[in-house]
């Protein structure tokens, strides 16, 4: 979309809003109504304004909108969504798709000091259509890990893109340093962190086996929704082995700027890992 089109859409949206009486801009004369610098229609500030015309209880609607990121109070035009709602929906969807299809920027990984390996998937399409290959690490990859990583650590942490590369770029810089520091402060031997491209949760069994880690923890991008594309989870397992049941995994989810802040999640995960080592158990066997 070019700038001019965006400005026209925004001007139209503002005009409609003013007409509907939902937004009253103070003391505006005719000539002052010129297109504003492009408003970001997917921004929380913009979404907070109800587009519904003449709501019966405007305050009640405002309260409901504060409680949810769902698209309520958006009104309609005939049987359709309003232009702004339709555009915002498509933009959010595009954002979610981008998060899945984009690759984590190699410069970002470099700045984090992480080297990169790849699952058995050759490309993104294979990755998305073959979950089994996304879990699998082939022998050359495992050999490389053995060569480049500290062996037999107490805790092996690594990151994987999973279904959201954006989640990695948004959270990894905040969560990884505190997690490593908190574990080292507890006197634990932390393995060499790295990044796994096209990786799924089940890859942690291969990593744990190859490196002899007591605890393995993968920080992975979650499948994006229309509310956020940046949610990350940590899947943690004690003595992981290939073929291990899913119930042995401990998970900490919803790590993003509107969920649990990444630094705080890192501090919390360090404590969970400490508990896992103490109890020699994870998943449903772990007594929280």
């Amino acid at each position, binding site marked *: 979309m070019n700038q001019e089109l965006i400005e026209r859409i925004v001007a139209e949206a503002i005009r409609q809003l003013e007409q509907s009486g939902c937004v009253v801009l103070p003391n505006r004369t005719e000539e002052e109504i010129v297109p504003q610098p492009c408003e970001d229609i997917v921004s929380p500030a913009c979404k907070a304004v109800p587009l519904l015309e003449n709501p019966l209880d405007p*305050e*009640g609607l405002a*309260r409901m909108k504060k409680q949810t990121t769902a698209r309520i109070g958006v009104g309609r035009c005939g049987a359709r969504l309003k232009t702004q709602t339709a555009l915002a929906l498509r933009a959010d969807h595009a954002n979610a798709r981008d998060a899945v299809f984009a690759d984590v920027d190699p410069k970002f990984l470099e700045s984090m000091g992480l080297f990169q390996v790849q699952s058995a998937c050759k490309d993104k399409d294979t990755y998305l259509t073959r979950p089994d290959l996304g879990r699998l690490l082939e022998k050359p990859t495992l050999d490389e890990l053995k060569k480049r990583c500290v062996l037999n650590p107490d805790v092996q942490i690594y990151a994987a893109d999973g279904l959201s590369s954006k989640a990695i770029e948004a959270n990894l*810089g*905040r969560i990884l*340093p*505190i997690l490593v*520091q*908190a574990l080292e*402060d507890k006197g634990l031997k932390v393995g060499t962190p790295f990044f796994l491209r096209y990786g799924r949760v089940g890859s942690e069994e291969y990593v744990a086996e190859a490196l002899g880690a007591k605890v393995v923890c993968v920080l992975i991008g979650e499948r994006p929704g229309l509310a956020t594309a940046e949610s990350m989870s940590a899947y943690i397992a004690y003595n992981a082995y290939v073929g291990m049941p899913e119930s042995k995994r401990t*998970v*900490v*989810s*919803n790590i993003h*700027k509107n969920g*649990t*802040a*990444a*630094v*705080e*999640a*890192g*501090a*919390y995960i*360090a*404590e969970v890992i400490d508990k896992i080592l103490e109890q020699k158990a994870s998943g449903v066997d772990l007594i*929280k």
Partner: protein
Amino acid sequence: MADLLSVGIDIGTTTTQLIFSKIKMENTTGYFAVPRISIVDKEILYQSEVHLTPLLTETLIDSDGVREIVAQEYQKAGIVPSSVDTGAVIITGESARKENARAVMERLSAFAGEFVVSTAGPDLESVIAGKGSGAWAYSLDHHCEAVNLDIGGGTTNIVVFSEGDVIAKGCFDIGGRLIRVENGRITHISPSAKLVAESLGLSVQVGNAADAAQLSKITDRMAELLAESLGLLPKSALLDAVTTNNSTPLTYRTKPKTAVFYSGGVANRIEPLSAEPFPYGDIGALLGASVFRGTLFGETTAQQSTQTIRATVVGAGMFTTTVSGSTITCTSAQFPMKNIPVLKLTPDEQEQCFLGNVQALISRIRWFCEQSETEQLVLALPGKENPEFPEAKRLAVCLADALEQTLPKDAPLLVLIETDIAKAVGILMRSVLGSARDVVCIDCVRVEQGDYMDLGKPLFDGLVIPIVVKSLLFG
């Protein structure tokens, strides 16, 4: 699940009461998320009788008498002081102005349980009564504003909630026992009642015959003063004269039909006057009848209070304890900690900490300790929602350095952050300090400069700390 046993003790102008309640807490998030412990239920276990507050003289509370009442009620309830986890002893209305109020409180809170706080101050009383009466819950449930008037013997405490937030509060020397009557004669007139009488050109003296018609004029004026205070009538100079010392000016303008709750002893008598004008030997029933006839009652919507005469004690027992966020850092074992003053940084001062400006923070802490004559404090800051790691680290280093240099050697470092980042900051502080210093870093609690805090023993295996935030100790 964990239960806290909470006690509430209220020593009011006229009555002394006590309740025990159970506060239930639970992890309210799912198995796969970071835990969040919340208070899920509250239940009254025992309510005492309504005792008259024992007095030695007009200006002295009978400390032994109060202790005796409390000891008896503990016994009747079958509860030993050591089993009480939390709660509040509060001294309200005119009782708070007695010469030995502070001594009575200290004696009582030492006896009543290890972690029982003693609080006072007209503003806090208003809020506590409003929570006890049900006004607070109503404003939350109905997404509206709700007013509570706690009309007691010596004072009327007013609070206005908007969806659970306190938006206005105030206290006035208007109450049911400002004029007392015995055998048809007036035996006591408080200074504020005298002012009201004088403003009406009435001469009312101790020893005069108690004339219900004359005294009704006075209570009518008192009721209209309450309407003035809530903006329903123009404010008169007399209103200022009967405003309780140290009370916040009440700046709220009540809209028609606003939900209004009445609590306190007089609340039970807001009705037409019965044949007997002085059933309690005071003007309480007259005042109730005046409120019933008055502008306030006429123009607003009176709601059924869940508690009337017990509102303050119920508020003290059930609504003073909160819990911290559930991801915190806590290495100290010296709980409970009581009456710790709060130093709250402004957003600008906090920014300096995020930038690592240790010197600025050190001088701020030193100044605060000097001003408040304290050696211990809770350093509170607004925090950030999603800080970068280096930011969080600079903050932690700055806090650790500044507190380490300013607090006594064995004192734990207490930090409170309003956003949910305390575990991270606490861990990073410990990284700097090593294990020589205890660190307590908690979050998700809102405090203001000038508040005091009590911290209880950690619960749920150290996940949370029960907290009481107090807005005012003795002035």
